[in-house]
Structures are given as structure tokens and as C-alpha cells.
């Protein structure tokens, strides 16, 4: 019988990525219903030092494949390793981060083991109601109490769809980075480490990496930011981001952007929030001159506090804002940066 909630944990340059820890956190929540172990799968070269971290964040077991072929991400060796693990352990569920790595390897694995894969999910839960059990059973699911329901946006976030994978195992999904929450770190947590051997051959390295380049600029991880000040078309030009940066600087926030500004070349792509950019859930999201197309809202609606400034009082961004200001960002933002600095200075003096 298929068993276990498996999470393929992403590492880059030998470091476990946050999305992996988020998925382990989500797996522990699924475990509350399914009662199966949470198993982290770690693939890389010389990465045993990262294993304990996976226990600290909730994994019961870690399956480690440590091999030079897995140092940099290459489709075939990764596919082969994950497939071998599935064949050996027959997981009930297997989750991947919906990153440029997870979205490359997961479909290949699903196809090889002949199972379904749901892309870019934002919600996972075990089937619980009689209606859900009946539906799963009607589609050929043998044990509906172990069925996973996977929710994802489609049509640019216009529609949400809940999918199931009733007949084949593992039930597989990629999960958007930044959506799930990791659990609190507990350094006393321990688990079982399984060192797994995969028989790689030279033929598995079927492409040749000629060059590996890590972005030299300080890479921005908006999904980690507590405070984000974001600019949209309404800021007028690339120079408009100077005011956004100034407010962000005053607050100690990161700078975000709508897709329009990225497409216009005003700011780098890694600043983009939304369906085709990052999903963020900061304590503060300040939307400046952003109309709030559904694709943008899809990436920021989990924010704790949303403040928006827009000239157009019918801008859809106001529908998801805690505080909306109808006004000109070009007038308000410079004054806002000053006011925040003044406030902070006073607070220190008092």
C-alpha cells in the first residue's frame, strides 16, 4: 500500500531552499489527517550537512541521495533519482516546489511513473466529507480517506480549481513558493536518515553544462520580505521607482512591482509580484499606482495589511485594500518618505 508524504526538497549551491521547508510544514499539516510519516527527499552533492535542518523543520525521515551528478540541477539525473525513490518506497503523496527546477523535474517524473501531477497548487487538504469520498470513489479511488484534494488558480487567477488524482500513486503536486508556512524550528527534533543509492551511469548526464552563473547582484527574495512597497504603471516611468525606493528605504522594506513595470523594463523581473511573478504574504504590502489586475492580486492577497494609493477611485486594488487612498502617488510618496523618517526619529528621541 502506498504510504508516506514525500517532499522533494530543493537545494541550490548546497543550501536547502525555503520552499522545501514550507512544503515540509504543509506535509506536517496533512499528516494530522493522514497519519503517515513526513519524508524529505534531499538530492545533491556533499549536502549531508543540511539534513538536520529538515528534521528541525518537521521531517520524520530524510532520504538522501548524495552524488556528484546532483551538484547542479540537471533534468535526467534528478528524474532518475526521484523515480528510483518512488519505485522503492511507493509514496502516497509527493510534493515539489513550483520553481524553475520543480516545474522541470516533477512533470518528467510523473510521466515516467505514470501518475497525475497538479501544477502550482496553493492549497492542499485530505478529503474529509462524504461528498468528497463519494466523488473520489466514483472516479475509481480505492481508499478515498487517503485522497488528496489539490487547489490551484487557473486562467491567471480568475478561477480556482480543486483537482484530485484518484487512481494512480503517488498523488503529486507542485506548490507555489511563499504560499505554505513552515513550522517553527525545533533544534531538538531528530529523525531517521536513509542514505539512498542510485545507480547512475554516464548516459544519465545527457546534457552538458558549459557554464553555471549565479546572479551576481544581491538576489532579492520577495517571498521572505516582511514589508513590501510596490510600484505600478501609475508611477509613470523607471525614475518613478526612485520614490518607491525612498519610501521602502524609510520603512526598511523591499521594492516590488506589477508586471506592467517589468514588461516596460522599468525594473528587474525578480521584483514582480503576481501570477507570473512571486507570491508574497508580507506584514505590509503598499501598492502605489497599481490598478490591481486579478493576476497581481493573486500574488499579494495573502498580505496582512494592504495600503494602496491610486488616482482612479474604481481601481480594483481598492477592493482588496485595508486602506485605500485616492490620490496622486507622485505627490504623496515623497511626503510619505519624509513623514515616516520623521516619525521614526521622534520615536527614538522619545
Amino acid at each position, binding site marked *: 500500500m502506498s504510504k508516506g508524504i514525500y517532499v522533494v526538497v530543493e537545494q541550490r549551491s548546497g543550501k536547502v531552499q525555503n520552499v522545501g521547508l514550507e512544503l515540509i510544514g504543509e506535509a506536517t499539516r496533512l499528516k494530522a489527517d493522514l497519519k503517515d510519516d513526513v519524508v524529505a527527499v534531499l538530492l545533491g552533492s556533499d549536502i549531508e550537512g543540511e539534513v538536520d535542518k529538515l528534521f528541525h523543520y518537521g521531517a520524520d525521515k530524510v532520504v538522501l541521495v548524495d552524488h556528484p551528478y546532483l551538484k547542479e*540541477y540537471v*533534468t535526467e539525473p534528478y528524474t532518475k533519482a526521484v523515480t528510483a525513490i518512488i519505485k522503492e518506497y511507493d509514496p502516497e503523496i509527493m510534493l515539489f516546489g513550483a*520553481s*524553475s527546477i520543480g*516545474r*522541470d523535474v516533477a*512533470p*518528467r517524473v*510523473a*510521466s515516467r511513473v505514470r*501518475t*497525475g501531477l497538479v*501544477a502550482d497548487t496553493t492549497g492542499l487538504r485530505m478529503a474529509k466529507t462524504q461528498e468528497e469520498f463519494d*466523488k473520489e470513489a466514483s472516479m475509481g479511488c480505492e481508499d478515498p480517506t487517503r485522497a488528496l484534494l489539490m487547489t490551484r*488558480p*487557473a*486562467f*491567471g487567477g*480568475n*478561477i*480556482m*480549481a*480543486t*483537482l*484530485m*488524482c*484518484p*487512481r*494512480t500513486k503517488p498523488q503529486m503536486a507542485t506548490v507555489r513558493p511563499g504560499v505554505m508556512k513552515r513550522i517553527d524550528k525545533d533544534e531538538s527534533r531528530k529523525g531517521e536518515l536513509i542514505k539512498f543509492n542510485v545507480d547512475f551511469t554516464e548516459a544519465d548526464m*545527457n546534457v*552538458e*553544462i*558549459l*557554464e*553555471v*552563473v*549565479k546572479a551576481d547582484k544581491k*538576489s532579492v527574495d520577495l517571498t521572505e520580505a516582511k514589508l513590501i512597497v510596490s510600484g505600478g504603471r501609475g508611477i509613470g516611468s523607471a525614475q518613478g521607482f526612485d520614490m518607491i525606493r525612498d519610501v521602502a528605504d524609510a520603512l526598511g522594506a523591499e521594492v516590488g512591482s506589477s508586471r506592467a513595470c517589468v514588461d516596460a523594463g522599468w525594473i528587474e523581473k525578480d521584483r514582480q509580484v503576481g*501570477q507570473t511573478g512571486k507570491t508574497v504574504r508580507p506584514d*505590509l504590502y503598499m501598492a502605489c499606482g497599481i490598478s490591481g489586475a486579478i493576476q497581481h492580486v*493573486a500574488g499579494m492577497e495573502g498580505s496582512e*495589511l494592504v*495600503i494602496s*494609493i491610486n488616482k482612479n*477611485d474604481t481601481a480594483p486594488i481598492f*477592493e*482588496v*485594500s*485595508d*486602506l*485605500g*487612498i*485616492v490620490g496622486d502617488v507622485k505627490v*504623496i510618496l515623497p*511626503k*510619505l518618505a519624509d*513623514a*515616516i523618517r520623521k*516619525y521614526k526619529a521622534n*520615536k527614538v528621541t522619545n
Partner: protein
Amino acid sequence: MKIVVCIKQVPDTVEVKIDPKTGTLIRDGVPSIINHDDKTGIEAALTLREQLGGTVTVVSMGPPQADVALREALAMGCDEAILVSGREFGGSDTYATSGILAAALKKIGYDLIITGRQAIDGDTAQVGPQIAEKLHVPQVSYVEEVKEATEDYVVVKRQFEDGYHIIKIKTPCLLTAIAELATPRYMSVRGIVEAYEKEIKILGFEDLKDDLELDMIGLKGSPTNVYQSFTKEVKGAGTILKDLSADEAVKAIVDKLEEKFII
């Protein structure tokens, strides 16, 4: 070199609306377009043909109306267009779709396959890699530049969130294209005229059945099924302040930041 580009006809999502009563998509009057990433793939293929010679074949799976997308691809300069269509294929998920397209590609023949990274309606990015798997050819996805191309191999720049790889991959292989790869050309007048003179070949179930996993196609054979679709609940609107002076607006924002312990 025989290059095959897989394209999908998609609704122009910006204009997609939902029926508030039924919660389903209103497709009437919504224009269809070639998916953006796929159009980028067509452009990359045409550029490679200009360098290396050979042909560009464009393939789409969908209902008979998808021939509009194929004619547009012909008008851009593709040599041949094939529609993969059949009642048996309807409702296929990515696993089933890639199996059907792989069967079609076996019939068509290929040295290089290009797909878009993902379609704007489904956003899955799965069909490209899954076609490659079915055909047992290597893939590079998220291709943002073709650095070098010969009959035997291509060298591409593969994008990651935190950098890139330069990868040499032997043909036959599959690449998935992202927007940075190319800017699609416009259709030429001559191309449009010629596009309507060319025949679009149709491959149906009977043509492909020998290469299909018969229990893994269409709505019934798809390993994933939709349980339900719904419109997303939006967070309720808070306070909206109009007609404030800049100073009043600034004060309102600072007060809010203070109230929520942001500053």
C-alpha cells in the same frame, strides 16, 4: 533540420469573464490567440531555420477551430501545420495531452521540438517536459537564448530564479521557450495569403492509436480530474479615502502604519 513547434490556442485571458450565476467561464466573444510563449517558440524556430535550413512544422492539439492559430503560424512563415484533433482526446489533462502529442510527433518526425514554457490558461508548464519524457529525448526548459545551433546540438541559456546555466544538448531534443527568447515577427501579407492556400493536415485517433496508451487519454483516461471550480473569494474592502490633501493622505497612512505596529 526538422523543427516542430507545439502551440496552443488560448483565450485572451485579460478578457475572460465569469458568469456570476454559474461560476463558469463565458467564452462567447472572447478572442483566441496563440499562447505567448508558444509564439516565442515559433519565432525561435523560424530564426533557426534561417541559420540552418530545414523546415518548421507547427502542431496544435485542440478542437477544429484551433486551425485559426495554425494559419497564423503559417502566415508567420512556418512550412507545415498539423492539427491533432478528435473527440477521444477531449478533456485530457497534461499527462494525456503529452501522450497524444508525443504520438503525433512520432508520426511527424523531428530533430528539434520547441514548446512554450506554459500556457496562459492552465499555467502548468508540464506538457513540454512530459512530451520529452514520452519520446525519451532530453529537454531544457526555461530557455531564454539560443547561443549556438548545429544539426547535431544546440547550446542554450537556461534561466533559473538565481542565475542561469549554459547547456549543450544533443538533438533530437526538446526546448521550452520563455518570453526572453525571441520577439515574434508579424504575419506578412504574402504569408497570410499563402496560409489560406495551404492545407492543414489533421491527425485523429485512428491515425495515432498504435502509439497511444489507450487507457490514458481523454477525460476518462486522465490521471487527474477536476473536483470543482470556483471563483476566488476576495478580501473585503477596507476604508477608502477620497479628496484628501497630500498631507492628510500621508497622515492617514502613517496612522495606519502606527496602529498596526509597522513603524
